[in-house]
C-alpha cells in the first residue's frame, strides 16, 4: 500500500479518506476496497520514514483534518519504485517442495498430490471464470486483472502436467 499512496500524493496533497476514495476510483472493482485504518497506519509510517509530511488543516464545521504531502525523499523513493522492474511471479514453491519431499518421507504418493492440487487449481479457475462472467466488460482494469490471474493459473496447471510427465 506504501507506493500507491506515494503515487497518489505525487499528484496532489490529500488526507487519508481522500486517498481511499482515489484508490477506489482509479482501480474500480479490481482493487480490494482499502481499509481506512490501514491507510492511516501506512501514512504514519511513511511520515516516520521521511517520505511524506503532514499538517493539520483547520475546518470550521468539523474536526481538523491531517493533510499529507510528498517530501523530496518521497518523490525520489517513488521514482526508484517506478523505475525498477517488478518481481516476476514465483512458482508455487510450497507445492513443489511438498511434491519432492513428501514421497521421500513416505507421507504421500506423487500422483495423489498432483491430483489434489489440480482439483484445487480447477476450483479456483471456476471461481475466476464465474467472476469474469459477473464483471462488467467495460471495467477494463478488472477484466485485465482477472485475465492475468487466469493466465497465471493456466501456467501453474501446465507446469503441473510437466511435473506429472517427468516425476511419475
Amino acid at each position, binding site marked *: *500500500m*506504501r*507506493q*500507491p499512496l506515494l503515487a497518489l500524493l505525487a499528484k496532489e496533497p490529500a488526507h487519508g479518506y481522500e486517498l481511499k476514495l482515489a484508490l477506489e476510483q482509479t*482501480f474500480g*472493482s*479490481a*482493487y*480490494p*476496497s482499502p481499509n481506512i485504518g490501514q491507510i492511516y497506519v501506512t501514512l504514519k509510517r511513511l511520515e516516520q520514514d521521511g517520505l511524506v509530511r503532514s499538517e493539520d488543516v483547520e475546518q470550521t464545521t468539523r474536526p481538523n483534518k491531517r493533510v499529507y504531502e510528498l517530501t523530496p525523499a518521497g518523490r525520489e523513493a517513488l521514482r526508484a519504485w517506478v523505475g525498477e522492474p517488478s518481481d516476476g511471479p514465483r512458482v508455487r514453491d510450497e507445492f513443489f517442495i511438498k511434491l519432492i519431499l513428501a514421497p521421500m518421507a513416505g507421507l504421500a504418493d506423487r*500422483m495423489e498430490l498432483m*491430483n489434489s492440487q*489440480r*482439483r*484445487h*487449481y*480447477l*476450483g*479456483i*479457475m*471456476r*471461481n*475466476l*471464470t*464465474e*467472476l469474469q462472467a459477473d*464483471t462488467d466488460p467495460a*471495467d477494463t482494469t*478488472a477484466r485485465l*486483472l*482477472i*485475465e492475468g*490471474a*487466469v493466465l497465471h*493459473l*493456466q501456467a501453474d*496447471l*501446465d507446469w503441473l*502436467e*510437466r511435473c*506429472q*510427465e517427468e516425476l*511419475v
Partner: protein
Amino acid sequence: MSRSAPKGLPWPAESSALLRTSKLVKVYRADGVTVEAVRGVDIEVAIGEFVAIMGPSGSGKSTLLHVLGGLEPATSGEIWLRGQRVDRLSKAAWAVLRRQHIGFVFQFFNLLSNMTVADNVELPALLAGVTPRQARKRREELLAELGIADKAGAAPARLSGGEQQRVALARALANEPSLLLADEPTGNLDSSNTRDVLRLLRRAHAGGQAILMVTHDARVASLADRVINLFDGMVADDARIVPIPRRMNGVGDVLELRG
C-alpha cells in the same frame, strides 16, 4: 440426474449413463512397433453431463475420443451408448449413430472445402432428415452466436483458423446431438472468441446436451461438471470440480497487495 434425454428414442433403462466404457483398449501396431494408446479405460458420462479430459500430450486423450466416436475401432473392451453396445458396429452403422446422436469437433477442422460455411453447417442436419428451412434457421442461430454470421457465404479456406474452428463447432451442434465429442475446441481461439465458444457450450450443456471434451484450456475445463485426467492411457483422476469456498467475493480479491 434430474435432466431427461434431450431428444431421440428412449433406450433400455438398465443403464443411466449416456456413454459408458469398460476396460477399453486401443493398440496401434505398425511396422512391428506396438503402441498402447488407451490401456483399460472405464468412464461414464451421464445424460447432459459436461466432462473434460485433461492430461499431458501423448496420454491417449485424442485416441480415446476418436474411439468413442467410432472413428477408429477399439482393440478390446466395451463402449455403450444410450444403453446399446456399439464397439462392434460396422462403419456404416457408426455413421448413422453419429448423425443421430453424436456431434464431433476435431482439433483440425475437417470442413468440406468445396462447400460454403453455411452448407458445411447445414449438411449434418439435412443428412439427418431435418427440413431445409429448419436446417437454415439452426445454422443462422449458431453462426450468429459464434459471431461469424457474416461468413455464411464464404469458403472455409477464406476463413482464419479461429473462424474455421467456430464453424466446426457450429456444424457439430447443428443436430443438437445428445453427445458432443470435442478435441481442443478452443485451441486456435483468442480470448474473446474463446468466450463466445464457452457461452455456446454452456448453453448447449444447459439445454441437456452431454459434452466430452479434450482440452488443455483450464478455463474451459473449469466449466465442466467433472474432469478426468488421463495419463499413460489410463484414468489417473476423475473428479468433480468444486469451487473453492469463500474465496474471491469480488475482483479485488484477485489482487495481492504488496509493499
